[in-house]
């Protein structure tokens, strides 16, 4: 499936986010081999130069490791992956708080709203 991209963020960044999400969800596990740059580029419909950059940046961030002649793998450094999970959480919270802040909600209102929302969801699940 060729991917769709949002206009407000570079494509390489959106691909890093996508792969990071897959790692956090457990779709890709520590030590898993990633597709080759070209395979991944064809699959997502992205220029191979862009995909090369995705792998380079993720390696720089310590999320993946390239082993000579073998390919690119999700890091087995679990501490790093735990940190990635927290970074992702932080990123979503920042976006949420910023959007809600623009609408005039205070952080207290957000917290209250979140726990109320969670309560309603649990009730509906019963």
């Amino acid at each position, binding site marked *: 499936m*060729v*991917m769709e*991209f949002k*206009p*407000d*963020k*570079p*494509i*390489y960044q959106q691909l890093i986010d996508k792969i990071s999400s897959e790692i956090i969800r457990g779709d890709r596990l520590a030590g898993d081999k990633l597709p080759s740059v*070209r395979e991944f*580029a*064809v699959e*997502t*419909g*992205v*220029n*191979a*130069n*862009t995909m090369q950059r995705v792998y380079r940046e993720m390696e720089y961030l310590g999320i993946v490791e390239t082993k000579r002649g073998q390919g690119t793998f999700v890091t087995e450094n679990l501490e790093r992956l735990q940190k990635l999970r927290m970074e992702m959480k932080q990123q979503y919270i920042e976006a949420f708080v910023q959007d809600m802040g623009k609408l005039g909600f205070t952080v207290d209102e957000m917290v209250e709203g979140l726990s109320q929302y969670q309560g309603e969801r649990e009730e509906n699940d019963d």
Partner: protein
Amino acid sequence: MIELQHVSKKYLSNKALDDIDIHFSKGKIIGVIGENGSGKSTMLKLMAGLLQPTYGEVLVDEKRADRKISTKVAYMSDIDQFYPFFTVNQLVEFYESQFSDFQTKKAGDILDFMDIEGAEKIKHLSKGNRGRVKMAVTLARNAPYILLDEPFSGLDPMVRTSLVQGVIQYIDLQSQTLIITTHEINEIEALLDEVIVLREGKILGQQSTENIRIKYQMNVVDWMKKLYEGGSGYE
């Protein structure tokens, strides 16, 4: 690198290109975009050595682009120019006889990738499959520069996707550079490293596609519209 230095091209009184100064660097996929009649095809034909500039110079790796430049430049026209009575295999053999850099095995691989039968006659192929065959024999050349004139035009989205994937699979950006003119910008935006916007024979802007997103939070189509509206600061 391909360079256009103060290039103008006139057809009788009509100026197709007007004092263009630009270069295309190696190892990239570059899109040339703009409305009909903006000079895109003329620019490509000049780089392929099929036309000569009225003024200025077109240089491919520092050599003037004339008919002989076809050893370095693979050019795919926007019109169907194949003998309809050929089979796909005969067309491949024909290309092999015409271009010393033609890779017969690679042509077979690309045709397989695109699900084309070699024994099929060209005239019996659908429009989409003719587009695929045309792309396959062009990409099978080991030329340092590959120029595609409107490769997606008039084809349905499925065919366009398979052509894009064929390009990604079979272009080697370590040794090749690809220049594409196109109207179908949205669908191939992720394929492009860089875009050049033309209007009435002049260049309105040249940018890396990722920079457009970073600087203006826009995709290429919206950026092009801003340029066409005369928005300054977007070049």
